[in-house]
């Protein structure tokens, strides 16, 4: 697999949310607006990048039997860092994302990449994989967040273009499931078309 391929496979072909269907909990919970989606995506990208790099560096030191707890400790370190950074510099984002920033610790994507990729590959490849998967996560969140914000609040990045409320259900949980389902279906459809041609 070429270096470029490792980086770009997470964008679309193996998108963690839309194809691997990992990390659906933050996807459903924080995509009420584009701003939240971007914030969550970038925070997770940072954690993915750092944890992938460190885990791949330590892969020969960590005993196999305790690898999962070790991964979690490493991931939790970076989540605490990003949590404190967001609270310090972006307090409004911190208050709207709330508990979901600390919950990146248990995000399946981060642990999944550590287990499936970083613990078996070189540091360089793991960094590329972390960046690619992080960007793929951010892309998926931003797509879902845009649809939900446009339909649900009639605004984009807090710029309102209708008066009053939108179709409220899209900012609530049922709307998250509907938009998520249709986005996954669309990606499947595009992939099946690509395969056929």
């Amino acid at each position, binding site marked *: 697999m070429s270096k470029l391929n490792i980086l770009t496979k997470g964008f679309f072909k193996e998108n963690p949310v839309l194809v691997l269907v990992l990390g659906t909990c933050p996807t459903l919970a924080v995509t009420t607006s584009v701003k939240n989606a971007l914030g969550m995506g970038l925070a997770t990208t940072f954690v993915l990048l750092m944890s992938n790099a460190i885990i791949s560096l330590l892969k020969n030191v960590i005993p196999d039997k305790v690898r999962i707890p070790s991964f979690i400790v490493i991931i939790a370190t970076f989540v605490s860092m990003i949590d404190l950074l967001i609270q310090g510099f972006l307090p409004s984002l911190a208050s709207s994302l709330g508990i979901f920033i600390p919950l990146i610790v248990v995000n399946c994507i981060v642990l999944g990449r550590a287990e499936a990729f970083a613990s078996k590959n070189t540091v360089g490849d793991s960094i590329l994989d972390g960046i690619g998967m992080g960007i793929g996560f951010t892309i998926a969140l931003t797509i879902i967040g845009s649809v939900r914000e446009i339909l649900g609040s009639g605004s984009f990045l807090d710029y309102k273009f209708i008066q009053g409320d939108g179709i409220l259900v899209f900012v609530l949980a*049922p709307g998250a499931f509907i938009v998520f389902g249709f986005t996954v279906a669309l990606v499947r459809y595009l992939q099946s078309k690509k395969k056929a041609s």
Partner: protein
Amino acid sequence: MDKLLQVSGSPHVHGNESVKKIMWSVVIALLPALAVSVYYFGLPVLILTLVSIATCMLTEYLIQRFMLKGNVSITDGSAVITGLLLAFNVPSNLPVWILMIGAFVAIAIAKMPFGGLGKNPFNPALVGRVFLLISFPVQMTTWPKPTPVWSFGAADVITGPTPLGILKEGVKNGQAVSDLTSELPTYVDMLLGQMGGSFGEVSAIAILIGAVFLLIRKVITWEIPVSFLLTAFLFSGIFYLVDPTTYANPCFHLVTGGMMLGACFMATDMVTSPTSRGGMLVFGAGCGLLTIIIRLFGAYPEGVSFSILIMNALVPLINKGFKPRTYAK
């Protein structure tokens, strides 16, 4: 009638029933309720009904013709029923564009993505209705008061709460049910349909006439409506006996809100209800129980649509538990 729900081994006699015939019987059965609504709420009822049906049929046509590129089956009448039932579940002064969103959602989200008629796990009309209720809570709960067509008032439309709304608010403010009777319509009014509410659900009698027609045509069976209404009656009756000041008479629960329409026309949808007799009884009982729980303790004054949707989700499980006995086993 006893054998109606049993499927035996071949050979079979070919009946002359078809999807089309069944669907159009349901449409005919809904006409009395439609007539009563036109009488009480006037022309907007007809406009909303037609718009809803047209949007449902158009959505289904566009999806089948251009997205699936397959056969177009909009003449089977299922989209017409979805449109009719959705329109029956909204207030008569709802803006037309909101109803069009609901009709689109009913077909394009609740029906076609699952594979079209026969494969949808949830009743499309109810999904459309609940979608609108959550999305447009103000417009969906502004109920015009019924005014027979020939009475001309000073105002165009007078709005007021539904009987269930009056009850919920009153009890929340600490009033006893008996104090509220002056604000509530009389039982005769409620049976005939002289009360605020979604325009198709107001008249219990018109809906029952349609239901009897469907029972005679054997389009629906008695299990679901009877167990739905009986459970609701008994369960609300227990609360009434315990504390008549905070809980209303069980008869009141039967004739108000969407109880009759839900029990006779929405819960009995063949696609989204269990297949065996035992399953149907459990399904109906669950609907009745959940409806009363939502009405008495929930945030919304009315719970028929939510309870039917919740029970729809349980239908595969119910079907698993009530399998017909295999022959010679």
